[in-house]
């Protein structure tokens, strides 16, 4: 009798334990996760507002009248959106000429960077040649040299060969790996990630390194190529001092210089300045949204390990 009772007790206990395991912790864990997620979302939205609000404020400012400007936050949205401001901003400076000039520089810079950095990265990642590892260290070290150390002598060099006032100093260096140490590093990581078997079997089939580079490496590293393209695009499009130093012909001025000229012409007219700023930002924003998935993937894959 007693044994039976004990058994029953044990069984009851067991049942209780199992239900405990299945139900109670499950519920609390789920609830805990939910609370955790809600807190994270709230913090992210709060910070996110601080990051995105300046953009929204830029847009509403661009659509305000002059008198609405002076009322600050009393007027969050303009009573009548002044789309006219954008038209005025475009007409105030040769806007489309500046856009065209920036695109010319971007085109050559992207082409040059892709050309020099992919080839060099392949040499560092997949070929064995004397001095390779030492030169790789040299390449990383070049990232630490202040640009001013190089700027002064290269400026003098360009002056001596008559390149001042032309676009050449803003184009040629990209074909020689200028400023692309980080991209070479990034691409090397990608190339190294491609399995040896793949290249070796191609070699057995009689493929040359050049063929492997074109037919296997480049197609397999698209996210990295997009990342490099995007970074170069943004750098050149947004660069202010390069064009300021080297360009003098008004017909060559870029959008960053144009925006600056606009500022000195219309200082205080913040609605027009914001309209002009938005217009100059549009191409980079569009390209960023277009390519952002590959872009984030491109950086994430590189896994910078110090």
């Amino acid at each position: 009798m007693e044994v039976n009772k004990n058994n029953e007790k044990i069984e009851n206990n067991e049942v209780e334990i199992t239900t405990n395991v299945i139900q109670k912790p499950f519920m609390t864990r789920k609830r805990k996760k939910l609370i955790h997620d809600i807190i994270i979302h709230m913090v992210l939205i709060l910070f996110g507002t601080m990051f995105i609000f300046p953009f929204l404020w830029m847009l509403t400012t661009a659509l305000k009248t002059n008198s609405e400007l002076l009322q600050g936050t009393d007027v969050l949205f303009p009573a009548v959106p002044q789309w006219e401001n954008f038209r005025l901003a475009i007409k105030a400076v040769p806007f489309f000429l500046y856009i065209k000039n920036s695109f010319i520089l971007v085109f050559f810079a992207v082409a040059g960077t892709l050309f020099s950095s992919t080839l060099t990265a392949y040499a560092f990642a997949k070929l064995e040649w004397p001095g390779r590892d030492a030169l790789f260290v040299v390449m990383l070290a070049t990232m630490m040299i202040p640009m001013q150390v190089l700027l002064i002598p290269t400026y003098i060099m360009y002056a001596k060969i008559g390149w001042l006032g032309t676009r050449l100093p803003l184009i040629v260096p990209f074909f020689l790996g200028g400023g692309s140490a980080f991209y070479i590093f990034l691409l090397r990581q990608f190339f190294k990630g491609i399995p040896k078997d793949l290249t070796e079997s191609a070699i057995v089939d009689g493929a040359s390194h050049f063929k492997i580079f074109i037919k296997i490496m480049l197609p397999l590293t698209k996210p990295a190529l997009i990342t490099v393209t995007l970074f170069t695009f943004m750098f050149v499009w947004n660069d202010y001092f390069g064009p300021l130093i080297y360009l003098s012909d008004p017909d060559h001025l870029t959008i960053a210089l144009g925006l600056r000229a606009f500022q000195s012409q219309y200082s205080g007219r913040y609605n027009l300045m914001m309209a002009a700023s938005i217009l100059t930002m549009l191409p980079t924003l569009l390209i960023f949204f277009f390519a952002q998935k590959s872009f984030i993937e491109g950086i994430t894959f590189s896994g910078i390990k110090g």
Partner: protein
Amino acid sequence: MATQKNKALGKLRSEERVLGYIFASPWLIGLIILGVFPIALSFYLSFTNYDMLGAPGFIWFTNYRILLSNDSLFYTALFNTLYHVAISVPLGLLVGIILALLLNSKIKGMGIYRTIYYLPNVVSVVAMSLLWLWLFQPSFGLVNNLLSPIYNFFKMEPLLWYQSSDMSKITLILMGLWTAGGSMIIYLAQMQDIPSELYEAADIDGANGLQKIFKITIPLMTPSIVFNFIRGLIGGFQDLTVSYIMTKGGPGHSTYYYSYYLFDKMMSDNAMGMASAMAWILLVITLVITMGALSLNKYVFYLGDQS
């Protein structure tokens, strides 16, 4: 089959010794023309009085002596830069790490948040400067508008931000935090390399969320922290666009940074020798601080290989 493979590979190995140089030639040529030669030239020029007109005259250490012992603006500019770097770099690291930790959790809509936080990095420095000129505008700007209840409560005058020499550096530093998403992406990249087994093991040992962050995530993030730290330092010492456009170095030289002074020496005065000396002083400062940062390497944790 195996010998055929080895033969093909062996032939290619010998080719590679030449091919390596051919593939790397664009960069190698650039390294010599745009790297080694300019560095040597810049070092030489720093001992001359070259002004783009006559031939460079060798004047030994005169440039360095004038800068270091006889130029108060040099020290003003150096102080401004050190002040800026000393505050903005650690602050930027902190914000970047916090953002990355927040964005590393597995919840819905992460892609959207990442895009939003990264977005300011897409904007050109000129456009960003114009935007913040407007946001920090003392009388009608958004920031002072939002802060006006606080000003009223403490019965204080609204802050003048970039228009006052006391606040101008802080204003530029605060502005810089808007682009902390750039370093965040690099932290995130590294966080995703951390094996999930580590967290599972910690769960079994009963570690809570904070413990996991401080005992696993942050130690394993140290390589990218060092990377971003050095990147921030080098960038911080070189940056002049924001002060050039927003404040013109003012008010009263309060945002006149080292690289701004160097740029003026170079472009306004054509004092190439003096500017080169400044560039070399900057190089030495950068190297010393970077080496200091790299000596922290013994506290850096590497996952897997040390490469």
